């Protein structure tokens, strides 16, 4: 189906049934979640999966993806007004955004962030529309060996490029794979690692793990400091508009950030977060006002905020076109699709075009809704920040506990929730990344099944598998990335030895 007709279909789907309401609910919750500390888009999406049981897959996806891209808008609000990033993807915005607010330009910062998010988000959806269908068509040639290699490559990229120590990332990744093996094996019907417990036959479910690591874990981190009400900078409506100069400087930054964000969003990893850092660096390098950076340079807000929104749209491409999520939020979306009986993969677009085009159409409208929610209505959300933190944390814990139990009425899920919450807290303090674990948990079964199917298809001949063109290319890229990192590390070690005697 070509893009034009697809989009028309998408809009007609959006206007029918509860889809428009689902879109609004999603983006509203996303903004809320972005503004409030203690819960992020991943936790919120996991929490809301059970409430989508009564909906169809299209409606569910529209709402959940709304939370995802909506949270990228909300995060900037808290960051600019209170200097506390509501979202990891808004950390960079704090550098110049808060400074702008201190100088009385809070309204301008908020506008630039919101408009940039809108422009980049919308352009991201356009790009998604043109990128995804050809990619899906291309991937129709893929068989189990290609999917196995692609999944493997994605996980390797995540561990290598995700920042932090590779060995920690790999440990989390393989732990996720191990957790994914628990339960009844789909191919043979045998139960693994269930120790005779019936409930473990379901395996370790994504929702309690995600809510534990990102929800309870985050709450535990916040218990460390007892904060009073945050000191917030007040913004009046008429102060919302940036000056002509500020616009002139922001608009190119928005386009640059959007492009960079989209490209980075296609790669596995915490794309949204990394793209903000990359965009900030780029803007600083290109700017004629370099010394302003760190003291309220408007490009330092426009670029990163646009980048994270474009990255969000881009990260949906691998999920919808290939069926492989490359980032934790899209892993949750994949979980939701599976629960609703939809098989993710390149066939999704041809077999369930309503899902793809429905989501695309909802993102256009969603971005418009978000622009309205985040500019004129920003006061509503900031007043929520006045909620006492202890009440907020207690509520989040309550929601996590109820939400987890509601998935399958399983006490085991609650145990997993609490256990992962504590584990998540400890691991975060020690600088381990959560994303590899979540992605590996979701992708582990895919990796294993495609691996076994490949061997079965090739009758045990591994050479045949590796000799397939796409598989060989992907394995080559993976090997190159790993080798590159090792070589760079080695060279860095050598140069640090050589630097030692040079004391002048």
């Amino acid at each position, binding site marked *: 189906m070509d893009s034009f007709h697809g989009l028309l279909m998408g809009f007609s789907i959006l206007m029918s049934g509860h889809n428009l309401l689902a879109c609004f609910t999603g983006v509203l919750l996303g903004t809320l979640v972005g503004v409030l500390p203690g819960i992020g888009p991943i936790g919120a999406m996991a929490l809301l999966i059970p409430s989508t049981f009564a909906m169809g897959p299209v409606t569910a996806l529209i709402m959940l993806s709304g939370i995802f891209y909506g949270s990228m808008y909300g995060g900037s609000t808290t960051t600019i007004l209170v200097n506390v990033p509501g979202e990891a993807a808004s950390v960079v915005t704090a550098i110049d955004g808060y400074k702008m607010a201190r100088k009385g330009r809070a309204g301008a910062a908020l506008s630039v962030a919101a408009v940039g998010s809108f422009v980049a988000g919308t352009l991201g959806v356009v790009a998604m529309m043109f990128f995804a269908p050809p990619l899906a068509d291309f991937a129709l040639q893929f068989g189990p060996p290609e999917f196995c290699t692609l999944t493997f490559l994605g996980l390797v990229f995540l561990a290598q490029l995700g920042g932090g*120590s590779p060995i920690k990332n790999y440990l989390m990744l*393989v732990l996720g794979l191990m957790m994914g093996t628990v339960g009844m094996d789909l191919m043979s019907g045998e139960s693994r690692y269930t120790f005779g417990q019936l409930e473990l036959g379901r395996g370790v479910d994504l929702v309690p793990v995600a809510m534990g690591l990102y929800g309870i874990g985050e709450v535990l981190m916040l218990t*460390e400091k007892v904060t009073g009400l945050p000191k917030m900078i007040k913004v009046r409506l008429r102060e919302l508009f940036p000056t002509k100069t500020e616009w002139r400087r922001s608009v190119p930054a928005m386009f640059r950030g959007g492009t960079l964000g989209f490209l980075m969003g296609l790669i596995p990893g915490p794309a949204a977060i990394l793209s903000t850092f990359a965009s900030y660096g780029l803007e600083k390098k290109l700017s004629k006002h370099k010394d302003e950076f760190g003291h309220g340079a408007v490009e330092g807000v426009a670029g990163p905020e646009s980048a994270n929104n474009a990255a969000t749209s881009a990260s949906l491409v691998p999920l919808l076109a290939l069926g492989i999520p490359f980032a934790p939020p899209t892993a949750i979306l994949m979980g939701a699709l599976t629960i609703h009986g939809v098989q993710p993969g390149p066939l999704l677009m041809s077999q369930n075009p309503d899902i793809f085009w429905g989501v695309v159409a909802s993102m256009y409208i969603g971005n418009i809704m978000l622009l309205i929610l985040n500019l004129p209505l920003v006061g509503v959300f900031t007043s929520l920040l006045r909620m*006492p933190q*202890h009440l907020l944390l207690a509520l989040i814990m309550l929601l996590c506990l*109820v939400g987890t*139990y509601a998935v399958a009425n399983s006490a085991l899920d609650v145990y997993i929730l*609490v256990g992962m919450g504590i584990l998540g807290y400890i691991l975060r303090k020690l600088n381990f990344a959560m994303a590899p674990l979540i992605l590996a948990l979701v992708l582990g079964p895919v990796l294993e099944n495609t691996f076994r199917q490949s*061997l079965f298809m090739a009758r045990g001949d591994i050479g045949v598998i590796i000799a397939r063109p796409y598989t060989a290319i992907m394995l080559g890229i993976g090997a190159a990335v790993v080798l590159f990192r090792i070589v760079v590390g080695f060279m860095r070690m050598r140069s640090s030895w050589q630097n030692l005697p040079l004391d002048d």
Partner: protein
Amino acid sequence: MIALRVTYLASLLVGIGYLIAGWEQSLGSLEMPGDGVFPLLVGSVFTLLSLIAVLHKPRPEEGLDHDARVFPRGEDLQRLVWIILCLVLFAALFRFLGFHVCTLALMIVTMRILGPWGWLKIIVVSLIVVSLSYFLFQYLLEVPLPQGSLWA
């Protein structure tokens, strides 16, 4: 840093335990890989990585000062431990005492630990919240939450 070393040791034990627990699984053949193949691969890699992690010298990392104490101390630690205890007790008791009783207790205790409010305010707010959630989940969303085997 000690905490990190302990974690790596723990992961080594987890890896070994995983491999031992999966010992009975069949490996099948190369044409028809059994259930045990993937766990064996994954478990071995994990154990090997853990071993490397235990033995290697950690490089200086951003955001983690290897000499500093990572976990909170004193009052902050006390708060954290209390909250964790509450969560663990919740998980242990909710089927016995019922979901709503436990969430009420959890809310009251955690708000008292984390915030400055007095008992009366906390109890009133918690009652309101739990009543709302009872209404929302039991009636509106029709999610069956355990009523507590003690009361049955």
